[in-house]
């Protein structure tokens, strides 16, 4: 076990865990931030996506010992983020969600895309979202919501 100082959604948090523990389980079990979901456990589905140092990161396969001092942002902070807010509003407006299990990962990836590419092409959306799986098949509505959110963002990004 070891102690790690983390910055999660802007707050300093301390955890005492095995260094090999994936970030996902630190977030869910130790910090009780259960919006981030366990899907496949091998980085293949994207349900566990969070932002680490601004980069969309598959939290199920990154040990906590690899995080360092990079800030972590989870789905719980998206309502307070301009791009996150726009995406969540679009998600509601387009009625994207069906079962909802993958959606926090979908939103985190979409926000990462729009922060770097406020006006994504269809190819941009296809490639950036291509690693996030949805068993309900909400893909058309996800794409529509990303286009809708993009239209609400300033051209140069939020």
């Amino acid at each position: 076990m070891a102690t790690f100082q983390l910055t999660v959604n802007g707050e300093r948090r301390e955890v005492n865990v095995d260094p090999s523990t994936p970030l996902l389980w630190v977030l869910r079990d130790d910090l009780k931030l259960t919006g981030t979901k366990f899907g496949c456990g091998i980085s293949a589905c994207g349900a566990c996506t969070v932002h680490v140092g601004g980069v969309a990161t598959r939290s199920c396969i990154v040990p906590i010992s690899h995080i360092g001092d990079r800030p972590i942002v989870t789905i719980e902070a998206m309502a307070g983020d301009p791009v996150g807010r726009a995406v969540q509003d679009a998600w509601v407006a387009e009625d994207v969600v069906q079962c909802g299990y993958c959606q926090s990962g979908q939103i985190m990836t979409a926000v990462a895309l729009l922060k770097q590419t406020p006006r994504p092409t269809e190819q941009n959306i296809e490639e950036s979202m291509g690693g996030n799986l949805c068993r309900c098949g909400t893909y058309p509505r996800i794409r529509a919501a990303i286009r809708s959110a993009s239209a609400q963002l300033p051209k140069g990004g939020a």
Partner: protein
Amino acid sequence: MPRIRADLLVSAIVVAIPWIMSVGFPGVGASDATTTTQGLAAWEQVYSVLTSPRCINCHTATNYPQQGDERRRHVANVVRGPEDKGVPGLNCAGCHQETNADSTGVPGGHNWHLAPLSMRWQDMNDRALSSAEVCRAVTDRSRNHNLDGPGLLKHHEEESLVKWAWNPGRRPDGTMRTLPPLTHEEFVAATRRWVEAGTPCPSSR
């Protein structure tokens, strides 16, 4: 005395001829043909490493990396992206950290990325290019970031992602990833011999 001197001269010649035959004449050096042959042999050793899975999986001709010894397409629909580092939301660095993550089986290294398309060592069907084709690509300074022979040697000796191939970490099942066919020291030594021979390339296709 003259007879003794003649004997000494003959003895000296008998001793000297094999030595000269083995190392060449001072000032003349080994023949160019011999040097080129040795260089080509060294290149084949280098090529055996470059086309091993630890290296060639990220030297693809397609818009995706490969993984595993079977060189399958990378999971999660990962794509190359405009800078060979993935795309927003699906960057290489989103999974591949600064070092290997052995507890989860994800390899890592500084600035994890695909080699540029100019350094593709495969065709569009994921088959390794021939020794001659890879050699031409590696030595073409318009395609290799303008590296000359010493630059290539330094790249093979010091670049962190090159060196990662000999410290590739564990697979998700806990077993060690396979290594290239030479040790890093042997790889560097072969590269040095190839560079010293003038980086010759096979003439065949």
